[in-house]
Each structure stands twice: as C-alpha cells, then as structure tokens.
C-alpha cells in the first residue's frame, strides 16, 4: 500500500463521522522505484490531505521514515524539481507491506498484509 492510497482511505464503519485520517501502523515497508510523472504529481497535489500525508510518511519505521517533507505545502512548491522528487518518493515509492490502518474515532483496525489493506467490514459494521 502506497501512501497515496493511505491518503484516500477512510473508515466507513456505520455511524463513524471522523474516520479520517486512518492512523498508519507500518511494520514492514518496501521501497520500489516508480515512474516519475510530474503531471500526475502537480495534478493530484490539490487533493492530497497534506497533514495526513506527512504524518503517515514520518510515522514509518525508522529506516524508511520520511523527514524531508515540509510540514505545510504550497502549490508554488510544485515548481521545484527537488520538491517533486521528494513528494514522488514518499507518495508512490514507499509501500507498506505489513501493518494496520486504525480508525481515529473507533480504533477499528484494518489489517495490511502482503501490501494489501483489507477494508471489508463485518456485518454489524455496515
């Protein structure tokens, strides 16, 4: 699971109002190169919840934790190749292979196994 996916996901258990962002508990992280697509990065930037993104990136296990992303981001930063590269790396090249996503409101845990979050709800949650 990429951090882009984490940025999109929310807890949709019945009745949950503040199911975002899911707290990321990453146990195993892999780095895999991805094609650099500046158009995509500039395009998706406006939809990224930056606080959730940076929070997730910094929460990764020590060797993968991202420290070089700014606390806040402005569209003007997209003119910087250096910024785009760091944005690209954190958003698309870090994969959480094992861990969990935790609902901030209910504490409901969604397992991530083999890189796949399981967001299925139980019958009493829909």
């Amino acid at each position, binding site marked *: *699971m*990429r951090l*882009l*996916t984490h940025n*999109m*996901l*929310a*807890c*949709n258990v*019945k009745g949950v*109002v*503040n*199911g*975002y962002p899911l707290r990321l508990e990453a146990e195993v992280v892999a780095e895999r190169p991805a*094609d650099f*697509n500046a*158009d*995509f*990065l*500039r*395009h*998706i930037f406006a*939809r990224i*919840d930056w606080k959730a993104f940076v929070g997730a990136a910094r929460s990764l296990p020590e060797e993968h934790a991202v420290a070089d992303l700014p606390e806040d981001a402005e569209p003007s930063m997209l003119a910087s190749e250096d910024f785009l590269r760091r944005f690209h790396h954190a958003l*698309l090249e870090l994969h959480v292979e094992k861990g969990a996503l935790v609902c901030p409101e209910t504490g409901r845990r969604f397992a991530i196994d*083999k*890189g*796949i*979050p*399981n*967001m*299925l*709800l139980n*019958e009493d949650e*829909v």
Partner: protein
Amino acid sequence: MHRRYSARGGGCARVLDKLRMKPELPGEGATRVIPADAATGQLPAAGERVESTPEIEKKFVHHVYDAIAPHFSATRFARWPKVAAFLGSLPRGSLVLDAGCGNGKYLGVNADCLFLGCDISAPLVNICASRGHEVLVADAVGLPFRSGYGDAAISVAVLHHLSTEGRRRKAVEELVRVVRRGGHVLITVWAVEQEDQSLLAKWTPLGPKYDEEWVNASASPQPRSPSSALSLESIPEAHEHPTRSRARSSSSLIPLKGIVAEEPAGPRAQSPSLKPIIADTSTAADEKPDGSRVPSPSLIPSKGIIGDAEKPDAPRAEGTEMGLPDDDVEQQEYFVPWHLPYHRAEVGGASAAIASGFAKKDDQKGAVVYNRYYHVFKEGELQRLVAGIEDAVVADQFYDKSNWCIVLQKT
C-alpha cells in the same frame, strides 16, 4: 468528515417514483424493487441496509470467485476495447479507481495514469498484487475512499452481481461519490438482450422462489426443497455450443470478457464521445412499448439509445404497469455456470464445495460446476438506475457486445 454521502434524499425519491411505475418482474417483487424508502434508505423487506450483503451474493458471487480465482484469472486477460478506449482517453496524470477490478486486467492500461483497484474477493486481489498493482479488498457497495479523490472510476461487469435494485443504485452512487467534479464513471453490465440468445438457455433462471428464499428470507436462507427452482440438482447442464466455445476458457458464457479477439481496435473502438447530455428523469428511456419483448439482437443499435431517451414514453401495458404477473416478462435473475477443470479444482477447495452441495461434478466435462448469480440488465434499466443521481449526467451510453454501458460525468 470526508466521506459522508449526500446522495440520499430527493434524488432517490425521484428514481423510486419511476421504479414504482415500471413493470414488475417475478424476480423483482414489490418488496424488492421498492426498497422504498428514499428518506431512510432502509430496506423494509428484510430489514437490511443496502450495504448489508445478501446471502445469495455471499454464496453465489463472493464464494464462487474466491473458489475459481486462479482459473478465472487465467482465462481473463483479453481486454474489452471500449473499456480500454475509455481509459486511453483520460488525461495524462489521471487517478483511476477500478471498483470490482477482478484480476486487474484494466489496471495500468493507460501508462500515463495511476490506478487503484479494489475487489471483494481477496484471492483475486492477491493476484492483482502479485502483478504489482496497487489494490485493496473492499466492497463496491461501500467504498472506503474519501469523496472526490479520483479523476475517473470504472465498474466493469460488477453491478450485475448485486441482487437488489437498492444495492445496484448504491454502487453507482459510490462510483460518482469517489470521483471529482467533472470526472467520469464508466459502467458496463451484462444485457438480457444477448447477441447470442441461445446463451440464455444455458443459464438457470431463478424463479419466483428466488424472492421467497433469498430476498425475503432472513440472514440465513431457508433450506431448499428438491423441487426448488434454486436446487442445484435441477440446474441443467450448460452444453457448450462447439462453435462458441473458446479454447482459452472453459466457461460456457463470457459475452464481455471473451470477445475481444473478435473485434480488433478500429473505428468502433474509438474513445467514447463525452458530450454531456443532461439526464432528464422525465424522459429517460424506460420500458419498451409493449413492456415485454426482448428486441431482436439484430435490431439493437450498436451505438447509443440516446435517441430513444428523447422520445416521449410510449403507453405501457396496463397489466405490467400494475405489477401483475405477465408471462412474457423478461427473466433477469440467473445462475450462470462456471466450469472449473478438475486439475484446477483442489486449489479452491472444490471437494468441500461438492460435499456441501455448493458445487457439483460434471465428469463428462471433467469439471466442477459452480453457479454465479447474475441480475442481467434490460434495455433502459441502467439509465433508470442513474436517473436519480443528482450530481451526475449521462455523457455517453451504448450497447456493445451484449453489454449495456454508460458513461457518467460528475457535475
């Protein structure tokens, strides 16, 4: 805070008003077609929310795909040109959500876009992940995504596996919800109006018992009597037509996913025109004039039924309008067999499935036969399903290769 829906309320009420007027089918008794209550979204029949998965889908969709996943995937590599063309038409840098991605054959089709797939079948999602795709396990009737994040969404051969009108509509609402304003949603479903009508004879129609045993039943279905229309023993064998069977598949019926080789990309496979057409609920194409007959496949326009939508409604037959039984009414609920070759069978635990009566052996074909639930769509049904969605318009609609297809644009 990001993901609450706004799609309930007025829009649903409108579409439900229309549904109340449409001819009722044996498989769509009043309790199911009118899940009523637009205000609350409750399903009075079984007291279930639309998000709650009915037993028939768990057993005859989810479990089956879990059991046949590797074989299904091995036979599902051909891509449908119209879907590929839609994906190819998206602007560079688009984020595409594939809800019900199966084995992921559309993920990554446009190398300039980013894809995220989800499916309710974990075995299928595992196959996608093993191919390097970004995927998760999720239910298309309740997507776990923030609203407005994607640029486009696709639902290819998914809605026909949902067993109530309310669930099908909710799945469409979800697709619209998760894309940004201006974003497009492509939906394809199997049509009643199959180009090869002989295929329907190979499916098992779910008779009136369907309502009693599944729709109106509580969470656990009642035991089925041997005479039940649902009895596995009563399901006729799907004898494959020699000229129709394809070497790469042992399924007797793959109208959408098995046809690609026959139609090379050409003028007809060009990207869908995306001229927005306001979805006018007062003139949406609905019933056929006589409310009953399947049109001859040769008469089905290969492109678009938009012209029909602009015509005033033809008078409907009284009987069907009142929801009275009609011998001519089209059957839409089916079991469609899947033949899992014996040499593939142990992976999915076929022995246990046979022992429990869930699947059966066909020694002649050397296959374990599973049945998949389908609600096949009739002409106009997809338009009706989307008519009440207030924040989307119909950008394109067409019939192609035994499928009804629609492209929505979020407003």
